[in-house]
């Protein structure tokens, strides 16, 4: 494979949505840095994070936008999710209200986002359930070396905090045509799988080649857009310097 021509690479804007504290930022941190911070809000402090996902025929460069806490008081701006090509709508398996909130976000995306948007419904905190321990194996963690995975095994005895069955959520996801995963940002279980599945599901037609950071934004409307970063200093010929 060493001599193969470089694969086409495309930027995809991916947004996170869901109730506060379901683990959105933790999922990003796990995916991008393979890290987890217990009992602590991970600080993202970036407009977006980037992470590449290598598929057999192409490379997807995710620009992952976190809510920056604006979901806490229902204050997310439309500009946040309007141009997204992919969305992770996250709920907490141990918190029934969070699935209701997730359904609200799915409906909002279906109304407001780009028509071809790929949405994944993600039930997080699987490690707090009985099957979470079983699922915590390193095999589930894809290419990342997941040292933390074993930690989940200790929670067998802790009892099952699950409040939302897999069937219930899966049935809803199927009805709405969403990808569906149960994950643990804590153990890393299924996290990479979510992003890989999204990368695979992005229709080829909604992709375009990279133009650098920020390129994913408004990908569909390349033609009329003006790039303020490229000021044309030699423009004075067009000025009426009669």
């Amino acid at each position, binding site marked *: 494979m060493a001599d193969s021509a470089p694969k086409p690479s495309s930027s995809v804007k991916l947004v996170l949505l869901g109730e*506060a*504290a379901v683990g959105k930022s933790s999922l990003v941190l796990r995916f*991008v840095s393979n890290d987890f911070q217990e009992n602590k809000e991970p600080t*993202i*402090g*970036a*407009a*977006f*994070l*980037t*992470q*590449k*996902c*290598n*598929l*057999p025929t192409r*490379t997807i460069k995710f*620009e992952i936008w976190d809510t*920056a*806490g*604006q979901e*806490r*008081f*229902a*204050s997310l*701006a*439309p*500009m*946040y999710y*309007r*141009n997204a090509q992919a969305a992770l709508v996250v709920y907490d398996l141990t918190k029934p209200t969070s699935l209701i909130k997730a359904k609200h976000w799915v409906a909002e995306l279906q*109304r*407001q986002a780009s028509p071809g948007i790929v949405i994944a419904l993600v039930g997080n905190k699987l490690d707090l359930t009985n099957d979470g321990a079983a699922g915590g194996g390193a095999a589930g963690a*894809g*290419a*990342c070396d997941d040292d933390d995975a074993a930690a989940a095994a200790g929670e067998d005895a802790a009892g099952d905090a699950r409040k939302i069955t897999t069937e219930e959520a899966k049935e809803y996801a199927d009805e709405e045509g969403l990808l569906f995963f149960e994950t643990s940002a804590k153990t890393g279980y299924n996290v990479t799988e979510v*992003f*890989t599945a999204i990368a*695979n599901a992005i229709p080829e037609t909604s992709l375009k080649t990279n133009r650098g*950071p*920020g390129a994913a*934004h*408004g990908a569909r*409307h390349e*033609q*009329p*857009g*003006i*790039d*303020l*970063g*490229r*000021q*044309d200093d030699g*423009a004075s010929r*067009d*000025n*009426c*310097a*009669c």
Partner: protein
Amino acid sequence: MESLSDIHWDVVISGTGLQQSLLALALSRSGKKILHIDSNDFYGGTEASLGLQDAASWVSRIEAGGGGGLLKSAAIWRPEDSTGLAASRQYYLALAPQVVHARSRLLEQLVSSRAYRQVEFLAVGSSYVFKPASEPTQPAALVRIPSTREEVFSTTAVSTKEKRLLMKFLKFVLDHDSSPQQETWHPYAEKPLSALLSEAFNMGEELQKLIYTLTLSLNPGINTKDGLAVIRRHISSMGVYGPGFAAIYPKWGGLSEIAQVSCRACAVGGGVYMLGTGIQSTEVVEGGVKLELTSGDAIRTRLLVRASEDAASGMPVIRRLVAVTNSSFDSLFEPAVEGAPRPAVAIIAYPAGSLSTAAGKASEHPVYLSAHSSETGECPAGQSVLYLTTNASPDAQELLGRALDAFLDAAKPSAQQEVRVLTKLEYEQGSGGSSVLITQGPILTFQATTPSIAFSDSVLDPIRSAWKKILGDEAVDDEYLTFSDREGAADDDDDVYEQ
């Protein structure tokens, strides 16, 4: 999570209009504890963009007296047969559809703060002058205004002699601060621009109308000093960001988008956001202000920044009519020169005197119509949004209606096509006393800005004053709104997930 009252806030910003939002952007890397609230459940204040349903509730609130002293006489209209109108959320009706010139400091600041990367900008295309019908043989027409050398050469709108005058004038404007040119216009500085044009340049009335339109001013008597400054801004902006256009427009509802992007930047920096939350009561106390929020939270802050909702008497009041139509008016949005991006906005000027009421009274003020194509995201494909603005007066409502009808007639793609207005929104909007920031102890107040056709940089000055006040000794002038990129790029190639 820490409750709001546990935190001793450095600054509470009330309202998410453009000024408050740009202030939030300016403070986004300061490490200050910022709470940013808005009593509306949308961003943007008087610069918001609204879906149809939002617009209807906005109108009801104003009619119930909720517009402060700034907004009044609001109404929304839909025909009985509303076929053709898409779902409410497919529309973004801009309350501030201003175009922004390439040479505006706003764009400089959006670039230096890196906020521009999250906004999609579109080209503003040609301006046109509305020429009323004269005699039965000459129907009303839209005359494209030439504002580049190429356009002046190619236009058929003016005679060869007028072309020469126009060239001479445009050249003069670009150079109007040099001393020989100053001699020409200084005697006219405080006189109406029309005096300079007719006396120093020998221009006839028609040519004067073309030039006046380049000012995009609502004031028919704009003086020479101000008039030349804005025409110069227009001409020197030409070509800065690409060939064939001088101004740009943020997609999805104009300045609203800049407000949203600025607020997000502040949130990324740790600012806390609460929509649908206003201030119930304010009490100045030792070391700051005690606030009771409509959410029931009682909080303390060192400083409070807010915007006045009062209109100052004697300051301009505009009347606006927003109309969604079932036609895309494609021919208005042709690029001015080859290789130019396709414009999404076109401006049509109706000089004073070019419209009249049913009673036969001629218009005393100019009217401007900004036509937005669906490329702005403000309406679905195949439709357009028209924003008409003039100074408020007893005749203004009728004259805007006439301007709209005249436009639909003159710009109609073909005699067969039936062009319909699908919905209309109208209101009056006042403005504050001046652009100076008002400081009363720990409370800083922005005065309402004057709604204009082109964005005016004077809006930016009080933001900087507020920023300095909040940061005190920590404020470094050269670093105002100057930030590096904040994209947490992972080490690219060695950290790729393989399938």
